């Protein structure tokens, strides 16, 4: 079986890249194996656990379910792209301060899912957060502190938006 190679161009964490990928390779293979951005985790390979969540054109996707060649011309954001100029993103800060990190393996996926939800939302309830995160499994925390972190980040983001 011959699988076609394709040259794709995309932006990842603000940086323009061009790579050659096989047609059957997944976005997570591009991110982890090709670009060595190992902050994105693989927990199940079936889109069920959410550990591999990244943003593609602002939308949260499980990178284990998307083919790499599909990101041609698109913009990808991974957990490595959140910290800017040495300053943690409010979500990262909130996860630390709320005690939402234990083993931390689900954390990048949780944060990327929440990036999608909280980026432009003025009001959010804990119930909405729970529903939004229902595709992200955490086996350590029981979720309470993750919800706390999301609410805290929401508050910080809202304050930032209001200051602009």
């Amino acid at each position, binding site marked *: 079986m011959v699988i076609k190679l394709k040259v794709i161009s995309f932006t990842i964490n603000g940086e323009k890249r061009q790579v050659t990928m096989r047609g059957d390779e997944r976005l997570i293979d591009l991110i*982890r194996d090709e670009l*060595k*951005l*190992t*902050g*994105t*985790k*693989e*927990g*199940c*390979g*079936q889109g*069920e*656990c959410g*550990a591999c969540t990244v943003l593609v054109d602002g939308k949260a996707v499980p990178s284990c379910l998307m083919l790499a060649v599909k990101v041609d011309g698109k913009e990808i954001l*991974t*957990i*490595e792209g*959140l*910290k800017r100029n040495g300053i*943690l993103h409010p*979500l*990262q800060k909130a*996860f*630390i*301060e*709320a*005690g939402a*990190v*234990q*083993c*931390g*393996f*689900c*954390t*990048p996926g949780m*944060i990327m899912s929440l990036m999608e939800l909280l980026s432009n939302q003025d009001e959010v309830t*804990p119930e909405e*957060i*729970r*529903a939004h*995160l*229902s*595709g*992200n*499994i*955490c*086996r*350590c*925390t*029981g*979720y*309470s*502190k*993750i*919800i706390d972190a999301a609410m805290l980040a929401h508050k910080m983001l809202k304050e930032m938006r209001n200051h602009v």
Partner: protein
Amino acid sequence: MKAIIGKPLNRVDGEIKVTGRHLYPSDMWEDGTLLLGLKRSVHPHAIIKRVDTQEASKVDGVVRIFTYKDISGTNRYGVVHKDQQVLAEEKVRYIGDAICLVAATNREALKEAIDKIKVEYEVLPAVFDPVEAMKENAPKIHKSGNILQHTTVSYGDVEKGFKESDIIIEGSYSVPFIDHTPMETEAGFAKMQDGKITVWAGTQTPFRDRKEISKALGIPEEKIRVIAPFFGGGFGRKDGITVQIYLALAAYILKRPVKIYYSREESIQTSYHRHAAVMYYKTGAKRDGMLTAVQARLIFDTGAYASFGGEVMSLGVEHFAGPYRVPNSRVDGYAVYTNNIIGGAMRGFGVPQVTFAFESQMDKIAKALNMDRWEIRYKNALEHGDKTAIGHTLIYSTGVKRTLKKVRESNLWKGKDKLIAESTPFKRRGWGIACSYQGGGLGVGIPDFAEAKVELLPSGRYRVYGGISDMGQGNTTGYVQIASAALNAPVEMIEYTTPDTDRTLDSGPSAASRTTYIYGKALLGAIELLKDEILQVAAEKLSCPKNSCKLIDDRVESDKGTIHLSEIYKLLPEKKRVSTFYVDMPISKDRRDIGSGLPHIVYAYATHLAVVEVDILTGKVRVIGYCSVSDVGKVINPPVFEGQVEGAVAQGIGAALTEGIKLKDGLALNNNFTTYIVPTAVDVPQIEVIAVESAEPTGPFGLKGTGEINVDAPPAAVVSAIENAVGVRVSSLPVSPEEIIKSIEVEDAIP
């Protein structure tokens, strides 16, 4: 100096995890790394007639295919019984036994080669039911027979106890194999470094791994180094060998970096699990609710290999009648081999199984006597100085009564009636309660120690060499916090390491609710010694008495002046800059004759309250309110403690309602998150977490341990609440909605 103890402290590993910067075992890679994979048995019980790797070897990208013939050591491993083979020799005992290890340059080649290895089998009769496996004529899985271990304990006179009772309640209970599903499956990386096989792995036991690798491969321990970075969850699953020997073998023979990372399906089929169990109970009580006798027969299915089968079952035996006074008892526990998946260590270690069974018995007695479920527990609860149901004396902090009292002060207790009354049509609500206790440490007869190491660095900072793995529970943060308090220095001055057999000292497994307790205790000892050296040198330099010198932040102060720790570093001889201290876990003073691993002496206690809503049209159960009150001794870091409680309760809710491996002839049918359902954020309510901080005299700053206690009670509390809601008593987990609907009386279902 103790100001930081009991205060929230952000985790020291927080930032490297939220930025994606931390390299987990599954993230490690360098140029030229080969990928490893395993050819595994497809039969649950068979003789291997022939293994043909010829065609597989020709696959482009395959570097090497190993069989047992490539192993020059014993080819055996296992924590207590060395009954597992690294690569199977003649026989396979479950679906998943490893036969060949393949190393390849890429994933596709690895998969193709594994598929192309041909194994010829002679299929043997297999047995999947532990009760069947105990029979004389059952297929023999190991030469020694199918009963791995039988532990029996008697206390008082059980027959007399039943005669004295006013009622006798009997019940049988069953629980399935449960998967830990840590978010990172078994993973690791290895290479030759400075002449040593160096393995980075997700492991709770780096020091024991070094011994296992050495024996299995026939390589001296000093040529092996095992490193345990922070990894993606364990919960007991990584308490022992998973991928470590495969990594070491390939790195050693190929002299190239290698990595392995199990798929979720491979992990669920082939790793360790919470033991499935069937449990038969007979309980006698007086009319006033006082227990007179408990008898039980516990059968734990350990699957194809021993792992911790005997020890887990023994812990079930020890805790079989809960945290209650039982004057007469007899318990028989069996750990039995079958051709099922392997049972091993999982958070709670045998206690969740028996807690579900015995707390159900307590509810049944209460119901039969028309007594309140809280009251019957309070009446029988153990107190300091009491003897447990297996007859040993509780000489340390014993807080179960305090947890029972405290639960009545919780918001959920006070609000439960209103919450239940707010039920909507076709939904019924109810509340349930359960208590548990959990021994900390490894128990009588098993070496249980820690040796802490702390160093003064040239800059005047300190480094704590953490000797026990941190799989996410936060013990490393605990060590930094303890060091900060004891050294009277800000947290920023304390560096830490995670375990590394070349740098840290053997402090035993990250298990048994022991990690912060025992290493923390050793660390306090090591710090006292280091402080003494520092103050001695400072006193000499400042020409003042030692007791007038005070260690404050990065300096020593006295009336005669101040000296910075970087100066002290220069003045101290090299070996005095490092101090180490060894401690043993306390063990029971009486009843040490029962067997290995029991009893314990330092216990955590808990009372849990659950409110559930049952949909009487679908039988679906939702937990809508939950409160945990636990006595874990002094809480060092409240958010870390709460995280341990909330996570354990979530796992317990999973065990109650959705989790359990469905096996068909030894094959896990639900081997991914699509079908093995663990709770998500919408399945777990906000949990009310309350600590009862009995000061534990043996623990550092009075702490006990918090890792496991809160995973024990949830299934019993949820099942208690279901009965309260719809009158259906569930005795088999996970709760089946079908069973609930079938059991709800038809007229009762019409609102």
